[in-house]
């Protein structure tokens, strides 16, 4: 048994998810594939969005996958880092904006 929860080699096994539920697994991968096709957004733009979200979700598999995908699409490391800062800003902002709720509560209870 692995001594860590995450094994990089497990990413290669992602497709095996379908083995225990073929219908739902296939529906997911069909959807996933369609989402990343070139559309109103380019595949390159989608890759950068995915990279930023991979970080906010803190998914190591997704970070590996979309770092490589971004490199394949010619994305520079400067672009990648900027995308991650966008994710970090939203994540930080999402925490901080709840401060308003705290302030509202303080004002109500102890204003």
């Amino acid at each position, binding site marked *: 048994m692995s001594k860590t929860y995450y094994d990089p080699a497990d990413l290669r096994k992602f497709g095996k998810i379908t083995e225990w539920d073929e219908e739902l697994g296939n529906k997911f991968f069909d959807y996933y594939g369609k989402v990343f096709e*070139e559309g109103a957004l380019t595949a390159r733009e989608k890759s950068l969005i995915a990279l930023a979200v991979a970080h906010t979700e803190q998914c190591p598999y997704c970070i590996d996958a979309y770092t490589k995908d971004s*490199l394949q699409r*010619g994305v520079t490391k400067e672009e990648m880092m900027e995308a991650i800062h966008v994710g970090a800003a939203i994540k930080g902002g999402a925490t901080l904006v709840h401060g308003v709720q705290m302030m509202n509560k303080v004002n109500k209870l102890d204003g």
Partner: protein
Amino acid sequence: MTKLKTQSLKKRASELANTNRQLEILSNGIFKNGELPTFKDKIAETNQFPLRAKKLEILQINVGYMCNQVCEHCHVDAGPDRQEIMTKETMQQCLDVIKKTGAHTLDLTGGAPEMNPNFRWFVEEASKAGIKDFIVRSNLTIIRANRKYYDLPEFFKKHNVHVVSSMPHWTRGKTDKQRGDSVFDKSIKALQELNVVGYGMPDSSLRLDLVYNPSGAFLPSDQSSMEKDFKKALMEDFGIQFHNLFAITNLPISRFLDYLIASENYEDYMYQLVEAYNPTAVANVMCTNTLSVSWDGYLYDCDFNQMLALPVNSKVKHISEYNEELLEGRNIVISQHCYGCTAGAGSSCQGTVA
């Protein structure tokens, strides 16, 4: 980040300068223990083994391994220290073949082919044969390397040469990391000079194509998307135009194999290649319509097999005994590096194949 080496594997007496060692690595480990299928077993699954040579379309001649650059991923292990240069006598033997070949494309490569002292004579003579597409693979920086090369754009134009040049990225950092300091700036200048004489302009018959190969242990993305990105960036930043972009996969041989092993990416990279295997690409791999001639006149199924010292499986071994009919139908010599040409949309010296 590792600093770019300035000498070939051969000069450094690296273990990987020995092609048998490279072939051993490619046949052992994950391919020996059954973790991944060998290329032979993989193509046999779709009844594509053995691969056979079809009618010859492309005659590719390597006029020498000497180069002014020492690129990180060079499959030729080329560099200034390489002394293997095609002689005028072998060039004459090649010309005898060029005059009678049925191939529609003649493709000169190296090293930097322009560094062969008889390069210009060879181009002049070869262009008289009237082959439809006459390619010279120019690394661009050679045009700016020395005063004696400054007129190359005019020379190429005079002989209606189709220029194909490597350009790993539209940014300085990524290009110089792979190809050496100041390669980007010199390449940009050379491209601008080619544009000035008419190369790469939208309606020009003077063809200028760029070759993109990834700067690290990953596969190339969609060729047409990359072409759009390259065109947009090179036009906006430098006013440069070119015709097509060929996206080429790095094959796990020579200096790229050395890099993969040193950076501990070898197994992951082979997994990527095998997982991206595309049987449709197998039907069109370049070894089935190409013949590669080495600096000393020997014949190979492709430039990669040449660098692995895997000669053609035919009675005809040398350009001096050339016979196109006898070479047709030969079995192609394969190993695990061939996965590089069948991954995704496939890869060849002319870009994707599927």
